[in-house]
């Protein structure tokens, strides 16, 4: 019953915004995740090289909605009416490049830059939660908008290095336990800060041990594998040019096994597919063996198609060849 080939995920993705998944309350409760969901869906379609299948009318409609998610303070909420947050502002910027629509980038950049704190870290919003995810959102957003001069890049890097642990990997804040998803945030931030001066071999050893006997990667020692870590950590290996440190074929097979035959990818085999894992699964497959599956090359630092990035002035010099 396990898939050995790529399923056609397009119908699943195209239907996402029509189907109110009435059987799950989760649909309604994810009202605040619409900007993120939009990015995952559209980017997954971009992975499949099918952006043109989205009608012009639909793109216009999405662009109009996205603009309405921008608040007075320049930041974006997760949907219209929601308060601004750096993660949603980052998603909105990414989505705008996928949809090729202009937002008020000037104001967005100001909002993002204002989130940097004295020690170089970034807060999520005015309420002060600090996390390496926000550092990544900050660096990625301002690089894409060519506004890196608004922040202290050196300090941003030095904060991330404080999140590094004795096991060679990274946690979300200083002292926090190392975690696969934060490998992406921290390595991505350091890469964009142009400062990879940490023990890369030690981190590669740690990532190597994240590969489970079934081929998938887990996020921490003694935890279960999950498709999303394929992206979070394999992208980091790509940025560090250490792709060989895991068994790529086994990881590829694992992602294929997590596909639903009706479309969509789940966290683990036989689980419910969702757009989050569908996007990260496809993006990881693009990095692993994109040619084989005719997937659009995705950039490991920005998680956007390289074809789009090369037209973005601030980002082009960071694209990996």
């Amino acid at each position: 019953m396990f898939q050995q080939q790529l399923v056609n995920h397009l119908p699943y993705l195209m239907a996402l915004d029509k189907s109110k998944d009435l059987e799950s309350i989760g649909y309604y409760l994810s009202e605040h995740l619409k900007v993120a969901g939009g990015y995952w869906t559209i980017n997954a379609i971009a992975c499949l090289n099918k952006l043109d299948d989205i009608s012009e009318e639909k793109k216009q409609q999405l662009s109009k909605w996205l603009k309405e998610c921008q608040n007075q303070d320049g930041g974006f909420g997760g949907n219209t009416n929601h308060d601004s947050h750096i993660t949603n502002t980052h998603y909105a910027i990414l989505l705008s490049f996928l949809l090729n629509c202009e937002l008020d980038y000037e104001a967005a950049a100001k909002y993002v830059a204002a989130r940097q704190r004295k020690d170089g870290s970034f807060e999520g919003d005015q309420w002060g939660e600090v996390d390496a995810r926000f550092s990544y959102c900050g660096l990625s957003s301002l690089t894409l908008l060519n506004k890196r001069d608004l922040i202290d890049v050196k300090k941003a890097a030095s904060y991330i290095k404080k999140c590094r642990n004795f096991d060679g990997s990274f946690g979300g804040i200083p002292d926090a336990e190392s975690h696969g998803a934060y490998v992406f945030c921290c390595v991505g931030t350091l890469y964009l800060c142009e400062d990879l001066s940490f023990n890369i071999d030690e981190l590669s050893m740690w990532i190597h041990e994240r590969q489970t006997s079934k081929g998938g990667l887990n996020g921490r020692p003694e935890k279960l594998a999950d498709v999303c870590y394929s992206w979070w950590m394999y992208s980091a290996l790509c940025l560090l040019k250490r792709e060989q440190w895991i068994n790529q074929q086994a990881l590829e097979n694992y992602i294929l096994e997590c596909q639903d035959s009706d479309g969509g990818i789940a966290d683990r085999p036989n689980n419910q597919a969702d757009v989050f894992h569908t996007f990260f699964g496809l993006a990881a497959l693009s990095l692993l063996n994109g040619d084989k599956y005719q997937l659009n090359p995705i950039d490991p630092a920005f998680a956007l198609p390289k074809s789009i990035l090369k037209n973005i002035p601030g980002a082009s010099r960071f694209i990996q060849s």
Partner: protein
Amino acid sequence: MHGQSKSKTETLSEEEIKQRAEKGQQILDSLHYFFKVRKNQVNQPEDQLAFSELMAKLCPEIATIYNYRREVLQTKFDHLGGLLKESKSIDAYKQLLKLIQSEFMLIAILLKQHPKSYTLWTHRQWMVLRSQEIDSLINSINQDDQFKLIEAIRQEYELCSKMLDRDERNFHVWNYRNWLSSISAFGKEDEFTKKKIEQNFSNFSAYHFRSKYFMKNYNQSENILERIKTEQILGLLPLPFNRLKEETELIQQAIYIQPKEHGVYLYHRWLAGVVQPYGVTKVEKVSNNSITLSFNRAVTNVENTFEIFNKENALKIINVRVEGSNAIISFEEQQVDNLKIKIHNQIYENGSLETTMSEDESSKFLIPSEIDITINNEGFTFTNTTQKEFQDATQEIYKYLDENIDFIKQVIEEEKENRFPYIQLLYLLQFKLRTQRLIDESKTSEIIKEALQHCQQLKKIQNDHQAQFLYDFWSQF
């Protein structure tokens, strides 16, 4: 959506689907109204807290609801705090307490359903900070009738313990607990992490936070200086040597029980790795304005450790640059023929606090020595002299490493097809190699030879990039 089995979602009756759709519509309608309130497009409800509580219970993960709630709470705190300050109003005091207590209660209920919600944990942290402020306000005006913040924080630890009983790896809880410890001192993290480890030797979160606790508890500058008084040179280790040995026994036991898990080896490696002393092993290069010294391992924070003399005259050091395991010292240019370099351990010799503040946990154990260099036509020769007491301390560490190496070899005997103990052994041999270089450089080849043999074994079990990397690493020597 993590960990949701596909089959579970396919068994709803039509009635149930209808009910859910209704509930869903109710959520959307309520949110719609909430946003109107948020934007002052309709009148504020009479009881804003009750309203936002209802909303929070309906949509526990929507940050905007908590943002609104915090604004309402802050206004109330400011108002009541003002009353308390002006008139010492007992009523205001009681209202403040009630507000704080019921807010903590509400978040606890919501956390039970959503233990991994960043939004909820952030809100709880915000509440702890507010109650700290309110506590100091109460203290400043009324010494007798305290709010008992200490009690409240104790209860927070209780909450963490309960939540970690339900999910021992929930990093949100661990991070919150760790944050609490940074603002208060009732954590008993030593006891707690040990209890969690004994409950389950596979709990890497507990090992992780145990290492953080050790570093904080034993590695403050005052602690180090105090330990030097009682333990002399071994006091430079980031944790007391006896403590380290006890801890090593604990983790060895864990490795015996769980030899196929990654986490136990990581913690063992950390313990064995923090004891690595460092010092100069070689003079690489000498010129009339600079000298390059080679250390036994990569170094940091050695800028203030050198004194240089040319024919007994002190030379002015211009700059010290570190490149991996080399330190390049440049000095005022002059004809040199007999150089003496003194390497000082500022912490040990002078109790210098500045050096002990370094973030690198193993950067304190610098072996002081005196290097004599004679320059002649063919190049230079040097001698490197270390005090006997430092040599003895290094030997003790060497013995500790050897005991651990023996232990891992026993594990290999039982686990011949398991890559973990081999990789561990290679790490320990690397620590040993570095230490050996400080004692007697000429005996390092035996260690390298042994390591290469283990690399070959490892490649037989696991023929992949990691094994090749380790093989290449040892081959370079």
